[in-house]
């Protein structure tokens, strides 16, 4: 039963919540605004908020000077490739654990989770060395595989929690009607599993896009994604606020938009189903 709330109380809640929300969002907003200023306006004191001459110049300069498109393309390939590969490997595994559980299913799931806890820095040199030996240092292929492995436990877990919500009775009914494994997979499970797979895709794409340990340490020029592109702006040479803002806005805009769609999945995915 919902309780009656006075309009006044609601107005107070709204004001406080919006104020705090805007405060937390402010750094992002400020970055976006600054990206449309000239360098002079970007450092003006007192700062100008909205009333400046909006310009797209910074975006043009950033694109021209650093070949933004190449970094963007690398990010898309690395994040997209690792996510798709991860899904391909994880769907069968999660399916079998959800529908044909055995005594060891729980142990396997927890063991998979434990590989996620391995601190990256603990295996930095071995991976670095392996990449050199295999000739894949600074290659997109290496990062696709590594990020896939890093996120595989999360992908398996998310899919598992989604698949487990598909009622087993439906499968039994299908089996009674003579459906084999193939029909079961194609006509019953796949349609029911699509939303779960889609949210898993989305969240893991975001995680891979923002990954900044392996992408910084294993790339130099050819395979460098947006994380590295931004890090290159930390050198004094790149210290121009408006251009820095334009570069930042371009790096985060796609993921901010995707992220807004994935709030709910975020909770489930990152708490391994423990909070829903």
């Amino acid at each position, binding site marked *: *039963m919902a*309780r009656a*709330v006075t309009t006044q109380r609601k107005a107070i*809640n*709204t004001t406080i*919540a919006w104020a705090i*929300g805007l405060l*937390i*969002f402010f*750094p992002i907003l*400020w970055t976006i605004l600054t990206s449309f200023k000239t360098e002079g306006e970007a450092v003006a004191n*007192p700062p100008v908020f909205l009333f400046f001459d909006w310009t797209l110049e910074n975006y043009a300069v950033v694109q021209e000077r650093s070949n933004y498109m190449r970094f963007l393309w690398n990010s898309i390939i690395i994040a997209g490739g690792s996510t798709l590969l991860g899904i391909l490997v994880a769907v*069968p*595994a999660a*399916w*079998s654990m959800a*529908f*044909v559980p*055995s005594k060891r299913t*729980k142990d*396997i799931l*927890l*063991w*998979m*989770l*434990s590989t996620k806890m*391995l*601190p990256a*820095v*603990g295996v*930095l040199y*071995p*991976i*670095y060395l*392996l990449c050199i030996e295999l000739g894949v240092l600074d290659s997109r292929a290496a990062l696709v595989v590594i990020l896939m*492995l890093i996120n*595989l436990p999360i992908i398996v877990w998310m899919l598992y929690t989604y698949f487990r919500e598909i009622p087993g009775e439906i499968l*039994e009914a299908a089996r009674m009607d003579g459906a084999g494994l193939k029909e079961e997979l194609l006509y019953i499970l796949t349609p029911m599993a699509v939303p779960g797979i889609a949210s898993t895709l989305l969240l893991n794409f975001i995680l891979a896009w*923002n990954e*900044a*340990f392996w992408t*910084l340490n294993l790339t130099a020029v050819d395979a460098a994604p947006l*994380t590295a592109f*931004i*890090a290159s702006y*930390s050198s004094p040479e790149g*210290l121009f606020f408006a251009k*820095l*803002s334009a570069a*930042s806005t371009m790096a985060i805009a796609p*993921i*901010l938009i*995707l992220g*807004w769609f994935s*709030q709910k999945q975020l*909770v489930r995915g*990152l708490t391994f189903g*423990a*909070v*829903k």
Partner: protein
Amino acid sequence: MATQHSRTAARIMMTPAVFLLLVWMLVPLSMTLWFSFRRFLPLRGGDQGFVWFENYTRFISSSSFWPAVQTTLVIVGGVLLVSIVFGILLALLLDQPMWGQGVVRILVIAPFFVMPTVSALVWKNMFMDPTNGLFAHLWRAFGADPVVWLSDVPTFSIIMIVSWQWLPFATLILLTAIQSLDSEQLEAAEMDGAGPLARFGFITLPHLSRAITIVILIQTIFLLSIFAEIFVTTGGAFGTRTLTYLIYQRVLESQNVGLGSAGGVYAIILANIVALFLMRIVGKNLDR
């Protein structure tokens, strides 16, 4: 009801994932262990044979070890404190009836989606820069001397940046937990004369305890290995070198692989202690 046939199929379907993760775990881990027992300087003489535990004792007795441990604990603890306390307050606030709740949620969660290098760089330059940063403008507007954030209060600054990224995560999870609380329980307590504080302390907080534990454990695992935020802002200077960053410097900057690997083994042990607690909670949830 699984048949023998489907059991075999299930096992086959699981194989690729299990195999890949097994390789991913065992190969680099055994290499790290191997290197940690050897004197290995790729640029200065290469692999010079076994020294057994010398790397382990040297890593611990080096003058940068304990400061790094301290920095790690301060940063992890600080971010946890900020994100849990403010996360609970924010979650309680967002659970109240209001206009535009969906939009506020989006505003609050947004920082979590910003890539770590971007948030570090934006904070470092546009907010914390002592000449042109917004904070400097603000300080001057009140007639105060601007703070040189990243060298005067470097650890505090990094805690601030990282908290900004992780507060949304804590808020979102705590909010999800709050929303699953049965509101009738609260109403009953209110009818029995329990004030807002009592209701929070005796009903909401106990209900949240599991979610809080999970937030603490998951964040600890991620926070123990923060890298980009330090790499971009201070590069480990001014006493902001965490354990992770120290190992990174040993391995890739000074190319002392043996020493760095021994540090890596310590980091793995540390992370595993935290992970054990997390796994126990998550495991319990599987038994439903």
